[in-house]
Each structure stands twice: as structure tokens, then as C-alpha cells.
């Protein structure tokens, strides 16, 4: 269980002329849930986008199971087995739930193979299978966005703020689903809701001002109020 699946080493990423990531390094172990924590604007979303190839880093390296992937186009990185659940879900509003899922197939039959698992995790999706994604509630859209990353055989899931703007009862459902998924895959999770991250994650990394400043076991962080106040406290 201690194999490193994803290794990010000192990446620097620019958006336009802004230097957003100024040296982020992290390791995600296969089969774990790793939480990426930090205040708004610390660079968490950009880190995920850099890994995904959507904002390629200008320097530093990213390795997936030892193979360098930085500089490759996003679709190739996805094909290597990286699933992405972006901030604000980014589901296709005019496509039906079924089409949203079908689009994520990388091989014919992917969806048929994983359909039962997905529908057991998110029964709502089955009910609205032929409805356009835009007609779903926020929570259902989040479930669809997560389900979309489960259709293909992904080794690593990058999940950005799954609890954002959702009612506590929906968040609980999503926590339960993520916990079930973790048995089969590896997750790098960005989450503002510390209570949720603490429930789920095995390990954590804290970003501050575009740098990774601290990491360790989640179980230790929960009691480390000084660190929580310093890096995660509101304000």
C-alpha cells in the first residue's frame, strides 16, 4: 500500500503572467485519500489543473506511477487513467445524464461494466437517467460529476471541492460514496470543509501562497489546532 502513485515535484505554474504555484510538491500513495488543504487562493485548484494538464506547469515534474506526465495534453493524461471532478462540477447541462456518462467512456462498454456500481452509489442518477444534466439539483449534479469520473478505469481521481454549496445531508451521501470509491481507487481531494476532509483523508498536504508548506497524517492534524488556525482558519 505504500507505492507512490502520483509524485508532484516542485512545480511552478503561471496563469497568464501570474505566478500561481511557486513550488508545490506532494506524493499520493496508491489506495489512499489525500486531502489538499489551504485557504482560498492558496493554489489548490491550480495544483489539480496542473496535474490534469489543463494549466501545465512551467517547471518541475509530475509523475504518474513513475512515468513523467507534465507537458502532455490533458486528453492523454486522462487516457493514462486520471479522472477529474472539477470545481463547480462542469457537467454538460444540455446532455442527458446518460450522455454525460457515455461521453466519459474510453472503451466501448465501459459504462455497461460500471453502471451497477455507479447506480448503487448514486441511485438518483438512475431516476433522472434521461433528463438533461442542467435540470438536476446541485447535489445531483455533483454526483453526476463524480460518477462521470468513475465510468472509465481510472487509477487516480482528482476531486475539487465536492461539498461546495451543498446541504449537509447531501454532503453525507457524498462522503459515503467517496469512502466506498476509495476501496478501489486513489483520490486526491481538495476540500474547504475541514470536517469532511478530516473524516475521509488518510494524509494531508497544506498549501499556502502557492507553496506546499506542511504534510502528514490526517489523524495527527485533527489535534494540531495551532496548524489548523495558522493555515486553515477563516480570514
Amino acid at each position, binding site marked *: 500500500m505504500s507505492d507512490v502513485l502520483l509524485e508532484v515535484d516542485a512545480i511552478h505554474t503561471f496563469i497568464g503572467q501570474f505566478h500561481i504555484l511557486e513550488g508545490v510538491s506532494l506524493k499520493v500513495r496508491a489506495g489512499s485519500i489525500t486531502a489538499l488543504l489551504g485557504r482560498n487562493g492558496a493554489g489548490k485548484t491550480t495544483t489539480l489543473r496542473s496535474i*490534469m494538464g489543463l494549466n501545465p506547469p512551467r517547471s518541475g515534474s509530475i509523475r504518474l506511477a513513475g512515468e513523467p506526465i507534465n507537458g502532455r495534453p490533458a486528453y492523454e493524461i*486522462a*487516457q493514462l487513467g486520471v479522472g*477529474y471532478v472539477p470545481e463547480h462540477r*462542469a457537467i*454538460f447541462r444540455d446532455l442527458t445524464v446518460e450522455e454525460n456518462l457515455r*461521453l466519459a467512456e474510453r472503451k466501448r462498454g465501459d459504462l455497461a461494466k460500471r453502471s451497477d456500481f455507479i447506480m448503487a452509489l448514486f441511485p438518483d442518477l438512475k431516476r433522472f437517467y434521461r433528463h438533461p444534466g442542467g435540470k438536476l439539483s446541485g447535489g445531483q449534479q455533483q454526483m453526476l460529476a463524480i460518477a462521470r469520473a468513475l465510468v472509465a478505469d481510472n487509477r487516480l481521481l482528482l476531486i475539487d471541492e465536492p461539498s461546495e454549496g451543498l446541504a449537509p445531508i447531501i454532503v453525507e451521501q457524498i462522503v459515503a460514496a467517496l469512502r466506498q470509491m476509495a476501496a478501489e481507487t486513489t483520490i486526491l481531494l481538495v476540500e474547504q470543509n475541514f470536517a469532511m476532509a478530516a473524516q475521509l483523508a488518510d494524509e494531508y498536504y497544506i498549501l499556502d501562497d502557492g507553496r506546499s508548506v506542511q504534510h502528514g497524517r490526517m489523524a495527527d492534524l485533527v489535534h494540531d489546532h495551532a496548524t489548523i488556525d495558522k493555515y486553515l482558519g477563516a480570514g
Partner: protein
Amino acid sequence: MIEWIQRRRGLIAGIVAAILFAVWASSQYEPRVLASILLSGLTLGALYFLVTSGLSLIFGLMDVLNFAHGTLFMIGAYIGFTLYANPRLLLNTLPFVLAFVAGWLLARWLPFSSLPAGHRRPLWVVAVLVGVFAVWGFELAPLATTALSSGGRVPTEQAQAPVGIFIARTLGLAITGLIAGAAFVIGSEHARRPANRDLAWPLGLLALALIIAPLRLSAEGWILALDSNTRFLLALVAGAGGGAALGGLMEWSLIRPLYSRPIYQVLVTLGLVFVGTELVKGIWGPGGYFMELPAWFSRRGPSCPSPNLIAWLQDNCASIDVLGRPFPSYRIFIIALGIAMFIGIAVLLRYTRLGMIIRAGVQDGEMVQALGINVRRVFTLVFALGAGLAALGGVAAAPFLGISPGLGQEFQLQAFIAVVIGGMGSFTGAAMGALLVGLARAFGDQMVLTGIQLPWMSEAMTFSPSIARASTVLIMALVLLLRPAGLFGKKE
């Protein structure tokens, strides 16, 4: 109920406006005049649709405003006409294109990708030199010239290059393609991914080029000996195919490097309008051509006009009787072509995986990428599809409007107006916009002809011909005032 009305007020306003207009129009014109105005409007609408559909798909998916779309329409008309009336030009250039592509593909198969990156620039220079040497002194314009005869346009007696020299040129272009392909492959992603190293394609294309080369003269005779209907269908296919190939090439070579600089893209497509127009003038001459109607749409005789569409299937009259007034049967064909393409694209968008990717890409191209789909390849495909549709429209318009280097410009402008009316990026909007603009033009033309007489007027009010053209702009202004994103556009 009230809420329902509020939500659909746009639709309701549209229906009310349409009914009011219909009532006014039916009081103003006799039914048979009205019918032919409507059919004329549909004809224009169908042609506009072939331009707007591609324009709108391309804008929706890749945010590219393709100013050269009308130019592709015009080039499609020229390619189709050339095949129809004088295939010599095509037969004498097709082997060159095939040989170049064959060489280019062959370069992927050979181990060029391991050459050092420093070889890249010198190789390009060599490729250009060899290419220029291969085609030096080869003139296109004489091959394109035709003479007027009783049967329409025929190729003039123009000596073609002897087979030996022609084949030497063909092989020269194959070598050019090979060198250029090698320069392209060096240090590119193909070095990393040895995909598609299939020899069948390059060798097959080269063989085809070498087979056509000695057969150029007789092939020309064979094509011209075909009946006009077959040639017309071939012209539609060749025009659309040629346009699609040009469009794909254009996206791949000029548009793709500029996705991060959208203003440059607009300028490039605008520049292509001038380059394309001048190239066409250089090859086919600045004057216009008239393309004859194929036999299906040109019979005249005692039984004509055909009493109805079914009778036309047998007698192929040039016009069909619509409520006692003859209407050209070719225009009915254009309407049918427009409807067929509308259905075809709608089915493609709705029921195929490619269509699903396009619809998703219009909303969020980045997310489509993140699902493992190579969006760039889809861009090229959609650009080619849109260009092919425009070129098909050009061929269809050729017998109806004539062919000239300026053919595309009027369509470009009106098509932009139609796309804006319908809503940028919406396929239904593109179709509705085209239809509205077509009808507006047809009614405008009629008003110019007969003027308008409202009940309180003692004599008809007359208009200048520019009103017909301005009417579409007026509609656009009105639509934009009420719905800034266009009729079917998403709110921005």
C-alpha cells in the same frame, strides 16, 4: 398558466408576429404570388443555411469567427463547376496533391523522428526548393480556360504537359512531401508515439497519382461523356469534398496555432478571403462563369411546366406549376438539399458519439479534454465538416446564381447576420436565422418590385432595391434589442 406564459413569452411573441405577418401578407398578395415568394425565400434560406450551419458550429465549438466561410462557398462553386464543365484542371492537379500527401505520410513511416532538431529548418528550406522546382513553369490558368459552345462551356484545345514530364513533376512533389513530412516529424509527438505507421495509405495514394497521370486525357473525355445529371452529382461530391479538405487543412495549418490568440485568428481568416479570391482570379480568371442546369432541371416542352412534384419526377421540366405559376424546379432541389442537410446534421449531433462530443464541446471544451477526448482532432473534423457544407452550398448555388470570385461575399455577410439572429453557436438558431433571412430577402425583393399598399394609402409605397438587403439588418437589430443573445442563443 401565467408563469408558463412568462417563460415562453419569446416564443409567444414570435408566433404572434408570424401570424400577424401571415395575415398581412395574405391580404397583400394573391395566394400564388405568396407561394412563389415563400418558395424563393426557402431557396435562399436553404443556401444561407448551408453557410450558417458550419459558421455556427465552428463558432460554437472553437470560438472562431470564420470570415473565410463565404470564400469556401465560392471555391466550392468553382471546384464543382470545374468538374462539371472542364475536369481537365482537376485531373491535372489531383495527382500532385495525392503524391504530396503520400510523401508526407511516408515520412511518418520512415525513422525521421530520431533526427536531431537542428535538421528541422534546413529540411523545410530543401522541401520548399524541391517543391518549387517540381512545379516550376506549370501553369494552371490555361487548364482552366473554357470556350463557349452550343452545348455550354467546353475545354479549349490546350496542350497538356507530356506524360513523362508530368510524372516527373508528380514524383518531385512526392519527394517534396517526404522532406516536408520529415521536417514536420522531427521532435514532434510522433517521435514518442509510433502510431499509424501503415504503409498502405502512402503507397496507395502514390499509385493512384501515377495511374491518373497517363490517363488524364482520356479521363477528361470519360467524365464529359457522362450525362449531365451524373456529372452534377459528381460536382456536388467533389465540391463538398474539396471544400472539406481545404477547411481541414486551413484549421490544421493556420487556425490551430492561434487558439490562444483569437484576434489573430480573425485576422487570418479575413486575410484568407483576399488570398482565396485572388487565387481564384489567378486560376479561373476574373470573369464569371455560368453553370448549366443538369438535364433533371432543364427540360422544356409542351407538357411543361410539370403540374406537380410527382409529375416532375417523370418529365424533368425546368419549372413546376405552383398554384398556376411556374416555379423553377432547380430551386425546389436546393430547398430539398437544405432540408436533407438539416436533418443529416441534426441526426449527427443527436445520435452519434461525434455529435455528443460536439454538443458537449460547445458547452465546455476543457472538460471534454479532461475526459480523455482529443478535442483538437474534433476541431479539425468540425471545421472540415462546416467548410464542406459551405462548399456544397456553393456548388448548389452555381447554376442558380452564376459563378464569380465575389460570389461568397454576399453570402458571408448575410450568413453572419443570420447566425447573429439565430444565436451564435446554436444549430437550431443557425437554421432559423437562415430561414428568416431568406424569407426577408424574398419579401424584400417582392416589395421592391410591387411596393406596399396599406388600406389607408391611395397608391402603393415603393422602395429602393437596397431595402431588400437592409431588411435583414433591421430584423437583426430588432431581434438583438429583444434578445441580446439571439433567438436560440444561451444567455451570456
